[in-house]
């Protein structure tokens, strides 16, 4: 496998080989699914919409609905205004959503369609909404598109009525519905009222009931997103995915925003809980203290399984940053840390964590690809690979165990339902990491070294 990649280190400076990112529109589509009763709309060629739906469906194993402006050559020459107006009319007539969330594609961006103006001219039934974000595929990544759609929710929907309510806005980032459920549970345990948007729990993790709901029960309602303007605090989880929306909430509605890491790992979960405790003056309930204690207990029970092992971690920036912090907590050595999303802030943040931990000799890169990561690993091997399904080629070629983490995971199931955030998420990650290393140890052990108790 992959023997066609050149041996040794070669310079790779242009284009991408085996990317660790995809384009903005799919992120915007995923975020839009986190609004209740929303039909995401892709303003461009049909292929884009089909690919995004397919990709999301392969990851979540749930139906993903979205419509397309179905550009043809004519639209590309004369502009897509007519297509978008017809789309909006057709969508409300056929699919009847509460709200349409329009995102663009590289095609409509290149043509230069003026989306806000087109929306103004469109027939929108009373009480229905159309929001939009420009998502040129040739900038940023899927995370940028996700962040953009979150920001569009604020700019179109959030309003301050002049009174601040004792409630928190949570921007959860590009995480699985299982993670969103867990965040909701933790905030609930703390007794804080919250508005989470987007919220794809109940949308792409629906039960099988023999009844198909085009608009499942989940998702943040338009009313909730509106009311986010009255909250006293916003927690932006993951700076790449959530900061833009939090900043706009602060600017537009005066809601204080605190940027945090995704609550993945012990320290990031502590920070998340403490931020809520400090702001709202609530007590941390015994139930959460117990969970935290169990995590520390487990870390000590298992530390000799993984401490000192080297890791290559890749994926989306917010995930990778939080995971790097947790690996440091676990006493592991993040050796190669790479994201495909552009942004120097990624490198700065990761390097600062490594420096604080006294770890030297690691390589950190934003806007990298798996060709490059593979080259690094060939130069000096690591004990463990953590990342998306796309890591499986390197894992096989270099015979390194892979812990699947992030988006997309296309070759395993159940992951969208199982949180990696919070203290319970810590336990899951510890189990996955330590099992991966122990399975390898068992596999490699000679008969005389094969042990019952590990």
């Amino acid at each position: 496998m992959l023997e066609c990649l050149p041996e040794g280190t070669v310079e790779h400076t242009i284009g991408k080989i085996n990317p660790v990112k995809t384009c903005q529109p799919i992120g915007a589509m995923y975020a839009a699914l986190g609004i209740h009763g929303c039909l995401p709309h892709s303003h461009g060629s049909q292929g884009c919409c089909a690919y995004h739906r397919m990709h999301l469906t392969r990851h979540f194993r749930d139906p993903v609905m979205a419509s397309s402006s179905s550009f043809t050559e004519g639209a590309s020459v004369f502009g897509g205004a007519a297509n978008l107006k017809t789309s909006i009319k057709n969508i409300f007539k056929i699919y009847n959503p509460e709200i349409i969330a329009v995102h663009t594609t590289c095609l409509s961006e290149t043509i230069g369609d003026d989306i806000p103006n087109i929306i103004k001219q469109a027939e929108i039934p009373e009480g229905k909404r159309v929001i939009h974000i420009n998502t040129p595929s040739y900038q940023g990544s899927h995370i940028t598109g996700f962040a953009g759609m979150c920001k569009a929710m604020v700019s179109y929907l959030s309003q301050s009525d002049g009174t601040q309510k004792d409630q928190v806005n949570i921007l959860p980032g590009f995480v699985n519905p299982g993670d969103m459920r867990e965040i909701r549970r933790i905030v609930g345990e703390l007794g804080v009222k919250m508005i989470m948007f987007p919220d794809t729990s109940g949308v792409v993790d629906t039960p099988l009931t023999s009844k198909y709901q085009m608009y499942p029960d989940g998702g943040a309602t338009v009313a909730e997103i509106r009311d986010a303007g009255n909250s006293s605090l916003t927690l932006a989880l993951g700076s790449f995915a959530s900061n833009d929306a939090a900043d706009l909430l602060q600017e537009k509605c005066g809601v204080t925003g605190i940027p945090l890491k995704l609550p993945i790992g012990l320290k990031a979960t502590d920070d998340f809980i403490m931020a809520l405790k400090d702001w709202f003056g609530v007590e941390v309930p015994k139930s959460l203290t117990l969970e935290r204690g169990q995590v520390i207990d487990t870390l000590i029970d298992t530390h000799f399984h993984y401490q000192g092992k080297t890791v290559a971690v890749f994926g989306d920036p917010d995930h990778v940053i939080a995971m790097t912090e947790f690996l440091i907590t676990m006493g592991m050595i993040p050796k190669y840390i790479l994201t495909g999303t552009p942004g120097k802030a990624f490198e700065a943040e990761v390097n600062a964590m490594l420096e604080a931990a006294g770890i030297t000799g690691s390589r950190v890169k934003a806007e990298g690809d798996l060709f490059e990561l593979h080259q690094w690993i060939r130069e000096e091997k690591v004990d463990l690979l953590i990342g998306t399904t796309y890591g499986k080629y390197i894992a096989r070629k270099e015979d390194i165990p892979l812990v699947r983490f992030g988006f997309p995971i296309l070759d395993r199931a159940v992951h969208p339902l199982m949180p990696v955030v919070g203290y319970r998420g810590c336990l899951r990650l510890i189990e996955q990491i330590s099992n991966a290393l122990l399975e390898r140890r068992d596999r490699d052990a000679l008969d005389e070294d094969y042990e019952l108790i590990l």
Partner: protein
Amino acid sequence: MEDLCTLPAGHAAPLSERDRSIMTAGRSKTAIHCADDSLAGSVSQRACVFCGARVVLNPVTDAAHLVHGPIGCASYTWDIRGSLSSGPEMYRNSFSTDMKERDVVFGGEKKLAACIDEIVEKSHPPAVFVYATCVTGMIGDDIVAVCKEATRHHGIDVIPVESSGFISGNKVVGYRAAAIALMRLITPKEGERIEKTRKLNFLGEYNLSGEMWLARRYLQEMGIEINVAFTGDSTVAALKQAPGACLNLVQCTGSMHWMAMQMEKEFGIPFMDVNFFGAENTAESLRRIAKFYDDPEITERAEALIARETARIQPALDRYRQKLSGKRAAIYVGGAYKAVALIRQLRGLGMEIVLTGTQTGKKEEYAAIGNLLDEGAVVVDDTNPAEIERFLTEMKVDVMAGGVKERVLAYKLGVGFVDHNHDRKECLAGFDGAVNFAREVYVTTCSPVWKYLKVPPEDQHEVQP
């Protein structure tokens, strides 16, 4: 909120334009309306030109496949094809020029040329396919000129694939773009001569789950060699020998019919439609191939093979037929050829086909499908989830055959599902494939899990045992 639980408008008022894309076998007087562009705003299951070109070409195993455009087009098509290789793995890498804003503004030709240089110098592929995408088509990058220059410079085939997505929402147009690229690759250069042989080419066979390998075993047993398949498990060198074949078999007619006609015109190779899905189809195809060779020994060996294999699989098929008899099936696939194959196979398992649809079928193909089906069965062109839901529920379907987007929808409705697309992991061709297919249909139709599914009284229908 209650009324949002189903599809209010979708049920009551499908756009009247869609009515022409739906017909009922034995009842509709007019022909089905198809190959239209999808309605703006529809939740279509269709893709684009790039997608069509990519699925046809990507199985060329030792070529580098470079997507010239922003990253998405390369990311979404990275190794999703499921075609297997007996050797090179080059095609499983994803190469993209990763166009940025400045490339869109100032043109991407230089970056494309640099990417080709890097790939050729580092990985030494025997050929590079360069795919155009929406943006590169829109800004007018001259990929033909860049490829020509790169061909001259590197001395290998660097072949442009004119697959800008917006040209059409119909994958068939992309199949054509791929066929043009393939013709460019296999047409002998001046002074080159390809020796004629008694071997055959197998067009429209992509070696999903090793299906080409199985067909090759059958043909070998008959004394016939496959020259090269288009494009499953093919290499650039093998494809270049394609003009030397004496016959072209065409399996996926949608993607390769035009290619076969071109090869007949250019190289004088006759072609024959074959179908290796289902035991009946396989036997019929093997007989026709034997007939072409007009060699009593080949015919004899073919008959021996068919008799042996048919007898071998019959007990297994009978077992599944017992379990599946009377169940109701729906089909929604890319092309008509596959739909026809599935109709025959499901019917062979004693099932009733109540719904058939394709993304890219042609008028005459739909007429053929309509004639195959029982009265009352529904035929649709380019359907959408709302219609699929409506039909699966109203027609009390037990199992559906389709692709990735239909799978999860069918499951949600409590309907079994069998993948007959890129995501299939079992060989479904030939005699062994017939048994595998029957097993897949049985497994999903008769999963023990279904009985735990509580069905609301109002739409209680025959739930799978």
